[in-house]
């Protein structure tokens, strides 16, 4: 997918001015609420007409104020998944799913109904009404409906923010796999860095109606570490849980991590660990209360605000810790140096069960 979009839109006190050139199939738009993300995608979908500018998607001009072109939304083949599922309450699940499919010209119909239903596990819901589905089910139906319209681009406008945490990370694998499996590129809008890293490769950052940068989602997370109260979030896939002395021992990248009990409804899963919860030692501390002590090699250092990020390889895995520059000098931390990373067993937080993460 290649998108070239130069648009201006004035709303009195708020002006949106964006100049975007981006290629890729997993693009993110990141910004706080009120930064203009939703306005931007509304213009891309054709729901809102820019005051001026030009939008060209894969060589097709969707809007041009100079040439007087404003392609209607139904002609753009850009489907949307909204924050609120926006299902049609008068149609059952099956007819919601088929709404866009029936209106898609036959030559563009590549997504097979039955395959999609299987991937999204919607078979048991097909004949039900949509009003009494759970939040996660509704969002899966909304996603399926958008995909079945066989769009050339899928816009996802904060599709997870109406869901609670546990559900959010169960839906992400569906979002990713469906788009990948059917070859539909997407633009994912969110104010959550973790969602960005799980969903996208390239991220466009927005602030107060202006584009402030374009980088990888990983780079964005590192750039924001210094100013974020949560630090940099390490995302860890942990597997093969065994119980040990009232704690949970997980396998991680050839090593082992001990976690506080209480999170073990399932054996494996995706966990987050803040860069602030990792303490570095130059030498082996003889006795500490933290239950995890990892032997790591510093792979690199990066600056982020007043903090220094330390990227370390631990076995086959990578962790990022944050320290102040003073600490880096005292410990003589540089690329290639060996450190010990201490992590409390209670510092990990489960994001999702592994079964959904590994779903095709």
């Amino acid at each position: 997918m290649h998108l070239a979009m130069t648009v201006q839109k004035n709303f009195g006190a708020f002006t949106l001015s964006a100049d975007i050139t981006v290629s890729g199939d997993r693009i993110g738009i990141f910004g706080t609420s009120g930064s203009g993300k939703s306005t931007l995608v509304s213009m891309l979908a054709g729901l809102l007409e820019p005051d001026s500018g030009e939008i060209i998607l894969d060589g097709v001009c969707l809007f041009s104020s100079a040439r007087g072109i404003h392609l209607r939304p139904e002609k753009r083949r850009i489907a949307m998944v909204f924050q609120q599922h926006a299902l049609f309450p008068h149609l059952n699940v099956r007819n919601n799913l088929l709404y866009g499919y029936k209106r898609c010209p036959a030559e563009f119909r590549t997504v097979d109904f039955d395959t999609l239903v299987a991937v999204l596990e919607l078979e048991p819901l097909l004949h039900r009404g949509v009003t009494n589905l759970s939040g996660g089910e509704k969002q899966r139906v909304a996603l399926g409906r958008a995909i079945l319209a066989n769009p050339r681009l899928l816009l996802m406008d904060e599709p997870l923010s109406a869901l609670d945490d546990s559900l959010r990370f169960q839906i992400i694998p569906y979002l990713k796999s469906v788009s990948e499996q059917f070859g539909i590129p997407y633009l994912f809008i969110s104010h959550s860095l973790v969602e960005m890293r799980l969903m996208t490769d390239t991220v466009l950052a927005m602030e107060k109606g202006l584009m402030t940068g374009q980088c990888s989602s990983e780079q964005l997370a590192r750039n924001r570490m210094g100013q974020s109260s949560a630090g940099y979030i390490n995302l860890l896939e942990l597997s093969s849980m065994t119980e040990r002395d009232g704690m949970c021992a997980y396998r991680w990248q050839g090593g082992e991590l001990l976690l506080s009990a209480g999170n073990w409804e399932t054996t494996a899963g995706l966990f987050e660990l803040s860069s602030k919860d990792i303490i570095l030692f130059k030498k082996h501390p003889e006795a500490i209360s933290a239950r995890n002590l990892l032997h790591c090699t510093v792979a690199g250092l990066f600056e982020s605000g007043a903090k220094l990020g330390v990227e370390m390889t631990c076995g086959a895995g990578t962790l990022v810790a944050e320290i102040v520059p003073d600490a880096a000098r005292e410990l003589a931390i540089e690329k290639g140096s060996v450190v010990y990373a201490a992590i409390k067993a209670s510092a990990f937080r489960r994001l999702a069960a592994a079964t959904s993460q590994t779903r095709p």
Partner: protein
Amino acid sequence: MFLADSDIQSILLTVKLASVVTVILLLLGTPIAWWLARSRSRIKGVLGAVVALPLVLPPSVLGFYLLLAMGPNGPVGQLTKTLGIGALPFTFWGLVVASVFYSLPFMVQPLQNAFESIGDRPLEVAATLGASPLDAFFTVALPLARPGFLTASILTFAHTVGEFGVVLMIGGNIPGISRVASVQIYDHVEALEYGQAHRMAAVMLIFSFLVLLALYVWRPDARKIMRRD
């Protein structure tokens, strides 16, 4: 017999008038309500006020102007004469035209409320899924506004049944053509036929109560519309 033949005739005429007016207003009021609900135009307020006029105008005022317009020298009268239809006042169709104006807000306002409460989002979703505005109107807006259509139709029908002033001004009092139930009751009272007036009045009372009962039992939100009007 409980009701005289002339009474039954007037009731049948009333039902026919109310049915015809409701059907015409469904066709006429839907696009007006849709436009009022969706438009951001400045003249929206003006049209909204015009539609609501019959709510506050004395029926005799409305009837008077309609009579002038439809009379032989009025613009509508001239038009109908040119078309070979003849003058509308004191005919059934003249009554229909007048009732359409008189009951317009009872159709348009509930429909406008229903369309407004749908919001933009379902229509935007339909558009991004490839539905043209007309397609989205029929497949999304109409089904979602269905309760509003039910309310609007019942209110329009009942309101037309209950009109009196406009009928007298436009239709006069011609049996089988313009003598509707409300006029018939008036005639009975004038002629001091209180027994017949009682029976007709009871029929009207029970009918009106049943209509409102249906509305209140099935559609609790219709009360809001009634109160606002």
